[in-house]
């Protein structure tokens, strides 16, 4: 049963363009995440938001910016995409209650191809 919804599923664009990805969770969780998964399946955390507040901001290029309107939504904008941005972007949510992150629930991902 899908409870973390990502759009679009795929996006093909050219170098220098701006893209935005959307994510919504219907689980009532307090924390949402963006992960980047490369072609070797490596999963790297990019951002984490707890109740609309940025909690984790890993070392990612400044062209990446997360946007959260409420605790159920976390979008990702990439200004001026580069070829190395080609990857699958996975959104996840969890309940932390201010302590350790519990189970992560992932969406199906957005596959970005930069030509």
């Amino acid at each position, binding site marked *: 049963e899908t409870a*973390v919804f990502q759009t679009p599923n795929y996006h093909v664009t050219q170098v220098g363009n701006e893209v935005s990805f959307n994510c919504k969770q219907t689980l009532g969780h307090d*924390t949402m*995440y963006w*992960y980047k998964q490369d072609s*070797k*399946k*490596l*999963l*790297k*955390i990019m951002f*984490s938001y*707890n109740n609309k507040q940025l*909690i*984790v901001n890993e070392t990612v290029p400044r062209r990446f910016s997360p946007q959260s309107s409420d605790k159920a939504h976390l979008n990702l904008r990439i200004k001026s995409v580069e070829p190395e941005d080609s990857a699958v972007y*996975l959104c*996840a949510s*969890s309940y*932390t209650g201010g*302590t*350790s*992150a*519990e*189970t*992560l*629930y*992932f*969406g*199906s*991902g957005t596959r970005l191809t930069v030509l």
Partner: protein
Amino acid sequence: SQWGEENLQALSIQEGEDVTMNCSYKTYTTVVHWYRQDSGRGPALIILIRSNEREKRSGRLRATLDTSSQSSSLSITAAQCEDTAVYFCARSSNTNKVVFGTGTRLQVLP
């Protein structure tokens, strides 16, 4: 061991065999997660084991956690073709950050 490797590991076994995947970590960890990822989908949790637990089972799956050696393992008994997937261990502590290992691609052959 997933966190010690830079690249995705690959395992290929025959249906009916047992298999064990290992993870080790160096930083403070309170929870170890094991996820599986099927093609075209996001990872899904299969077992979560906390630092005060030594072992947890779920059907044919068994996870262990040894806090003294800072390692965890996931075993699958009598693997089936449907167990073919990429398996990840992940760790978290008293933060909102869940860090994933490099993953093991398991192929179970009929």
